[in-house]
């Protein structure tokens, strides 16, 4: 219950002041994202005009690479940081708007398949990460945080669990650093593996949504493959995110039974508090699209708006990834995370292949 912890209160900041503070960073996100879009359009044309052989690099990758270059060379100045942190808001807004591209029947069908795979993935990932953490002698609560981060939804799950199991700030920093570093790696490795294995858009999207931990990275890894794969990755990842409350509640009850965390009083209220509300927004827009509340042109406009929101997200993924900061966090949590991620990636790939045979995709 991260929100219920009595933190030392800083002077309250007025929403208007807070809004002004994020403007420089949001403009930076827009500039980096738009530069990625311009590069996608112009580099290919330039290379073709000069008869160069140059791979077609999508705006997603350009935006991430420009962000990474800024973050890991000159760094992100303080004035931009609040705004850059809004990438998570743009991500969730983009996902809600993307609901216009899914008819309810598709959501129920694909979501049903995803839900079954997600349940198996979560159980397998938690069991394996717990075993691995013990084998490497990590602190038990750090192991719990890494397990939740790998199994459910990366940084958000770690932050939600940290409060619920009363883990140290240091443990959650280790776990977040490991998950972010591995997320950054997955952006580059997943599309390569997908192409090498000739995965269909459907199979790849499902795999990225099941195996990549952070929602932003899962969305980007899907979009790097194709538009259709990006849509599927978002759906599978959103299904995974919806499970966060149950997993955090289970951990909270376990650590309370060990006498190392507070008991959870009202379990229904706890589940509601941890439930990612943007999933409801996504479903609502999908229901509206299914019952023709939007014309075809309006649905296209909403889908384009969602792409603009994702453009800011992808810029933010690059800008907030600083490899120097991650290196400072130590090797063991990273090693546990890396081994776990490889095993989870192979495990989920096998799950997707099995589901593909069963459902024919």
């Amino acid at each position, binding site marked *: 219950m*991260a*929100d219920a912890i009595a933190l030392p209160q*800083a002077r*309250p*900041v*007025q*929403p208007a002041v*807070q809004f002004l503070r994020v403007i420089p960073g949001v403009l930076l996100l827009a500039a980096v994202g738009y530069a990625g879009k311009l590069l996608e359009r112009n580099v290919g044309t330039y290379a073709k005009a000069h008869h160069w052989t140059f791979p077609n690099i999508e705006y997603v990758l350009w935006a991430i690479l420009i962000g990474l270059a800024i973050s890991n060379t000159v760094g*992100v100045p303080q004035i931009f*940081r*609040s705004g*850059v*942190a*809004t*990438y*998570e*808001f743009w*991500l*969730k*807004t983009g*996902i*809600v*708007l993307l609901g*216009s591209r899914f008819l309810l029947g598709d959501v129920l069908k694909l979501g049903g398949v995803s839900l079954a795979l997600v349940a198996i993935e979560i159980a397998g990932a938690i069991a394996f990460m717990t075993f691995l953490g013990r084998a490497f002698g990590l602190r038990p609560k750090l192991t719990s945080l890494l397990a939740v981060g790998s199994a459910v939804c990366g*940084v958000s799950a770690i*932050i939600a669990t940290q409060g619920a199991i009363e883990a140290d700030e240091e443990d959650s*920093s280790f776990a*977040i*650093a490991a998950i*972010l570093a591995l997320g950054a790696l997955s952006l580059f490795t997943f599309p390569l593996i997908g192409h090498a294995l000739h995965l269909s858009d459907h199979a790849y999207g499902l795999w990225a949504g099941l195996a990549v931990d952070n929602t932003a990275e899962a969305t980007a890894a899907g979009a790097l493959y194709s538009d259709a794969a990006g849509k599927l990755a978002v759906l599978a990842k959103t299904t995974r995110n919806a499970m966060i409350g149950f997993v955090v509640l289970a951990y909270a009850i376990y650590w309370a039974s060990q006498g190392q965390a507070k008991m959870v009083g009202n379990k229904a209220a706890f589940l509601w508090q941890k439930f*990612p*509300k*943007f999933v*409801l*927004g996504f479903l*609502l*827009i999908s229901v*509206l699209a299914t019952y023709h*509340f*939007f014309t075809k*042109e*309006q649905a*296209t*406009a*909403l889908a*384009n*708006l969602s*792409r*603009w929101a994702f453009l800011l997200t992808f810029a*933010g993924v690059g*800008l*907030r990834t*600083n490899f120097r*900061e991650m290196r400072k966090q130590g090797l063991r949590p990273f090693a546990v995370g890396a081994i776990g991620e490889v095993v989870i990636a192979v495990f989920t790939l096998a799950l997707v292949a099995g589901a593909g045979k069963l459902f024919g995709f």
Partner: protein
Amino acid sequence: MSSNTVSLNTRNSWLLSIDSWAVVVALLAALLIRFGVFTRVPW
């Protein structure tokens, strides 16, 4: 990671959570498009 710290610490000063704001803004945008305030969004 500084960005994560910022988003965590400033959540309360935004009145609503990031998730709720995302839903509010997306629904508002959907309504503006639905009722013709914005007719098309180029990409």
